[in-house]
């Protein structure tokens, strides 16, 4: 069955407070070269048949909120 990976990320203009906390921790662990960490979501979908338009619809209708998030569809494995 085709598997699809959807990556949802917070829009770059918005503060990711959880990502900032993770970045602070990494810096404390000695990774002083780190300036930013941002946390997104990976959603793996399995469908009986792949139709790109329908997967986009799923993203637009529920998986991502266009007010705060961007998404991309990658890794379609037939």
């Amino acid at each position, binding site marked *: 069955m085709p598997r699809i990976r959807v990556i949802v990320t917070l829009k770059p203009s918005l503060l990711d407070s959880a990502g900032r906390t993770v970045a602070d921790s990494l810096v404390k662990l000695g990774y002083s070269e780190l300036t930013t960490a941002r946390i997104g979501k990976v959603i793996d979908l399995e469908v009986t048949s792949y139709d790109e338009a329908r997967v986009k619809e799923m993203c637009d209708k*529920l998986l991502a909120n266009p*007010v705060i998030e961007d998404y991309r569809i990658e890794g379609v494995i037939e």
Partner: protein
Amino acid sequence: MKIAVLKFPGSNCDQDAYHSLRDDLGLQAEYVWQDETSLNGYDGVFLPGGFSYGDYLRCGAMASRSPIMNEVRRFANEGRPVIGACNGFQVLCEAQILPGALLRNVDEKFICQDVYLRAETHRSPWTEGVTSTIRIPIAHGEGRYVASEDLVKQLEDKEQIAFRYVDAAGERSSTANVNGSVDAIAGVLNERGNVLGLMPHPERATRARLGSVDGRTILQAFQLVAA
């Protein structure tokens, strides 16, 4: 005036809302489950707080797609009073009945405390009765209101900013804006002014024993509209 108190799986302030409206404000109220498809017989809606669908995916995301929300949208368009507090606010934003969105508090902490609010417009029944600084509780981890600069300006121009976080004296300050909301916005209205979403809990401040009765100044909108 009969109010529908909506229930989603994971709502947990529905009883607060129900008892506040019935016992403290003397209104009629009934619970309405999310799968219902009609709000016939009701005059207003209360979307309660909680953690609908466990806050999975995004706060309010799944609840905002439930069948009853078509009726909430109808009420919003017909100019009937609709209020969403806390998770209810998140649901209204996710349904795009209200503009903007709510993200994690700037300090990543769940905040449970009283806050002071100032009404920024009096053109809506939801803010008409709020003539001075009020004190009501908040209890949320994801209440940082976000909107683009353009949207904030538009909200300002159209008088859609209902409440801002202020200090006890009614002034804005960085400490008063506890969750880091853009422009200290605590609550917003739809364009028409009949739909209010806010992070604070007016239903938890409607009798003296609860520590404040200031929530009445907001919820009395249901009575104002009925009159």
